[in-house]
């Protein structure tokens, strides 16, 4: 049996977890899911649809929000009871973190960011390194494989399954397990609306935008396409845009339907965060810019001419 950690944030499903469930099904064994926090029980329908027969729900008075070490302890309790062949989660910051706690509790190896998994003795994985620019073929010497599934490496496919059977359990938490938990939140730098991770369209600007004022036209295009604004690292480190908008290994990894990169040459760190986008359009003055190697379509030219022309042409076409 393969156990998949399905991540949820105050009752809301993490979409990458559906990809992890899909990847788990491909291993040819029964799939069961586990969710941390009792509000996760509401996910039995969707988790079942994606192929999990059982949804284990870790419920505890001290798990009221994201509490990563407690997640690790809950997973440990469950793994020791169920003895799955593998434990998988999405290769997201939270997926990697919670499984790392599990691996530390069990003193087992963990393979993060895997694009391919083969169970055996040893287990074998392909995993991303160097911001996804290198693929490592690795053996994992452990009875139970602990691995996270590289974001966007598997397309989510429904198994048309019926709702999973909910089995609640109470992990035996120690006080140190919930010493670190989310105490409060605020909207911070994010202006609300579509977040980068959920956006279907992202219009990103880089050094070529020239300064904070240049982002007006990027925002306008993004809004017109129902999307949101992204940017490269140099833009946030220059203080032109908030860090929450940074796409890349040190920012947010995204895979929208459409990614428009304007004035971004394509440092490895940036490419890692956007190369899985369905359609990539590049607007750049340099026909040799590395980002063109990842693009579907490109316009060679100055974004300050191309973007306003594009915005008005789309407005016209929309009528």
């Amino acid at each position: 049996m393969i156990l998949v950690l399905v991540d949820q944030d105050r009752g809301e499903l993490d979409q990458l977890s559906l990809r992890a469930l899909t990847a788990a099904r491909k291993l040819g064994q029964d799939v069961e899911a586990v969710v941390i926090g009792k509000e996760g029980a509401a996910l039995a329908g969707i988790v079942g649809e994606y192929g999990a027969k059982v949804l284990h729900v870790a419920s505890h008075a001290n798990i009221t929000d994201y509490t990563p070490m407690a997640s690790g302890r809950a997973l440990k309790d469950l793994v020791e009871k169920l003895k799955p062949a593998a434990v998988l989660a999405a290769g997201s910051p939270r997926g990697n973190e919670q499984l790392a706690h599990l691996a530390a509790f069990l003193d087992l190896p963990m393979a993060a960011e895997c694009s391919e998994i083969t169970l055996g003795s040893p287990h074998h994985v392909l995993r991303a390194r160097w911001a996804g620019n290198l693929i490592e073929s690795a053996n994992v010497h452990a009875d139970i494989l602990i691995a996270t599934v590289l974001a966007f490496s598997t397309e989510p496919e429904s198994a048309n399954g019926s709702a999973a059977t909910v089995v609640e359990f109470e992990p035996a938490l120690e006080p140190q397990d919930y010493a670190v938990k989310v105490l409060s939140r605020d909207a911070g730098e994010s202006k609300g609306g579509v977040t980068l991770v959920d956006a279907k369209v992202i219009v990103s600007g880089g050094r070529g935008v020239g300064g904070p004022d240049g982002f007006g036209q990027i925002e306008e295009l993004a809004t017109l396409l129902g999307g949101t604004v992204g940017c490269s690292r140099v833009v946030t480190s220059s203080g032109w845009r908030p860090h929450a908008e940074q796409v890349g290994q040190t920012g947010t990894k995204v895979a929208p339907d459409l990614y428009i990169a304007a004035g971004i040459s394509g440092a490895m760190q940036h490419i890692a965060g956007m190369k899985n986008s369905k359609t990539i359009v590049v607007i750049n003055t340099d026909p040799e810019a590395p980002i063109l190697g990842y693009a579907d379509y490109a316009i060679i030219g100055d974004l300050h001419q191309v973007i306003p022309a594009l915005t008005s042409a789309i407005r016209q076409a929309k009528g």
Partner: protein
Amino acid sequence: MDVLVCLKRVPLAGGTLILTPDSRDIETKHLGFGISPHEENAVEAGVQLVEQMGGTLTLLTLGPSDAEEQLRSQLAIGATRAVLIETDGQEWDPQGTAAALVDAINAEETKFDLIIFGAESADSAGYQIHIRVAHALNRPIITNVKSMKIENGVAVCDRVVAAGREHYEVALPAIVTVRDGLNIPRYPSVPGRMQARKKPVDMKKAEARVPKLEKVVLTLAPSKSTGAEILGNGADAVPALVDILKKIGAF
């Protein structure tokens, strides 16, 4: 306030990576070395804390003896001393690395109030060493921190997520991992560089363990094989792009 920052020597690869003939490593003959991006923020945070509160900043790394270069350049930023756990130059797996770091930390006379890691390494990105160290030292850990204050023995931290900021607090001693954006790392001053030459770097040896996460071979990830279709130059190419955007249903 005694702070420890853990670092990793990594090659400074530009746009294109080249592999060694046995495909087990990146060819570094023509590359310089540095530390992972988030770690520059980790050192800066450590230096600022010691400036504000007094105490010491110790650097710790595991790597080849050449990693002394990275320790010296960070000592020049303002760290007090450094410890280098010398390997045979081979990469160690996360469990072996964490165990060696834990042994070195336990061997220190200083009981560090705060241990800081970068959120992820530039090269292997295993997302676990900091957490294994936290478990072994029985300390709480907050990861991916983008703002941090120490107030009355409590680390007050924010982590940036898609929908905004999450707020955490934990009593010291603790471990945090920090991200790019936490602060603006300073450059070493000339006197800083001079002093760094004389600062102590303790060399230690540790036995390699049989890796449980065993690297077999590396390959370069393919870029899109077809390459981009060039639609044209400047604003003249806009109609072609509008057609494509319409076709893929972007509006």
